[in-house]
């Protein structure tokens, strides 16, 4: 699997102070694969996601995305800021709280990465940004500031901003957790579309029904370890571990996805 996988994580460890958040995590994501990370809060799933693009520096183990591999541990120096920046440019991330740039219009938000990081000309970047905004169904909001958008629209802009970097993989960190229930569907629809286009994705989510639909693999984490993993439907419909069963009992696992209000 490691030959063909897009993301490969081996023996990943991370502690915050005396709190060990990740204990020897291994993870493979195939090219074009969609992996959902679920688990109770404090299970380490967000930290694991942030280790993939090194927003959080692991204490040990290794992270590989595409052809770039970083090893961590005693005696290995952290990569320098330029190397890190170059690496992160190939991974898109979407945050729970959107983190749009409030001093820029929607269009400028999406253009920022291409212009500043990829050094594209303004004209090229604008063309690309408008195309990405159209893809998430927000072409007509290009000249508005984020403050005037709904939560669902903000998150779709954030997705467009990440896509404008034309990343190899997309990481979603509880992308719908801060949204009003009626706005969840439009964001999930965009993610689902990306999955159908073959984007490699890792999705931290509490939307179990969505994970079942969209993810091909599912990983259940608790207390910094992977408790159970397997094909998404199999794990959700027929969990083997008691902890997985206990966690999943809090959710409706099947049924229709929340309706998408957007027409992307």
């Amino acid at each position, binding site marked *: 699997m490691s030959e063909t996988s897009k993301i490969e994580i081996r023996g990943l460890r991370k502690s915050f102070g005396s709190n060990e958040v990740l204990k020897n995590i291994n993870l493979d994501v195939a090219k074009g694969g969609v992996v959902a990370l679920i688990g109770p809060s404090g299970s380490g799933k967000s930290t694991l996601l942030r280790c993939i*693009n090194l*927003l959080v520096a692991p204490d040990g183990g290794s992270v590989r995305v595409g052809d770039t591999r970083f090893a961590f541990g005693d005696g290995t120096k952290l990569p320098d*800021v*330029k190397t*890190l*920046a*170059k*690496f*992160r*440019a*190939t*991974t*898109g*991330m979407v*945050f729970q*709280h959107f*983190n*749009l*740039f*409030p*001093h820029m219009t929607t269009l400028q938000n999406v253009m*920022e*990465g291409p212009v*500043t*990081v*990829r050094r594209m000309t303004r004209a090229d970047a604008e063309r690309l940004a408008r195309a990405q905004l159209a893809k998430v169904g927000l072409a007509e909001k290009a000249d508005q500031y984020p*403050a005037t958008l709904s939560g669902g629209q903000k998150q779709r802009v*954030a997705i467009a*901003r*990440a896509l404008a*970097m034309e990343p190899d993989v997309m990481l979603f960190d509880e992308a719908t957790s801060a949204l009003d229930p009626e706005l969840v569907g439009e964001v999930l629809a965009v993610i689902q579309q990306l999955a159908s286009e073959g984007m490699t994705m890792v999705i931290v989510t509490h939307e179990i029904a969505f994970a079942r639909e969209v993810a091909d693999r599912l990983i259940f984490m608790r207390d910094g370890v992977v408790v159970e993993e397997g094909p998404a439907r199999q794990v959700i419909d027929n969990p083997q571990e008691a902890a997985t069963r206990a966690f999943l009992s809090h959710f409706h696992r099947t049924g229709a996805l929340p309706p998408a209000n957007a027409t992307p």
Partner: protein
Amino acid sequence: MYQWDFGILWSYRWLFLNGLGVTVGFTVVIVILGVVFGLFGAFGSLSRFKAVRMLALTFIEAFRCTPILVQLIWFYYALPILAGVEMTPITASALALSLYGGSFYSEIIRGGIISIDRGQSEAGAALGMTPGQSMRRIVLPQAIKRMIPALMNQSIIQFKNTSLVSVLAVPDLVYQSQVAAHDSYRPLETYTAVAVAYAAILIPLTILVRRGEKRLAVSE
């Protein structure tokens, strides 16, 4: 009952204007230099390197926690003896006031930068920006907006602090009015007029600052 006679000040008008010019010019210099020192202090105190942080914090606390009057006297009388550099009263007081102001500007700038949500620089980093790029493109544009009212406020205080340079015989408005007061035997009129002159310049400025604050509040 004291008989006020402001008319007598008219014959000193050139002296006052001269002093006012020095005061305003001096303020411009120490505000600009102060913001430059403030930038060094702020970025120093946010540095990744501990030695740089310690250096910046030492600068900030040394100037923030000692009286400006003592600093002025110390820069003019003590520094030449310790460091062997002779300074004119103007140089000594410009340096002392800029560093004093810089220590406060440092805290304003640092506070503005750290008030910006961490998610902003994280989003920049996730796009592939270096820390420098995300500071310039993402954090600073937002932080500067928040700093402006406080920077203006501190600059107003700096304007008033220039009155202290008269102790080193820098011919500012206060120094010239001392001359006028001694000459005319009319200290009450003289110092009242000086107070009015400071207020006449600063009150319009404070109104401007308040308007600016309101406009910023609306756009956020």
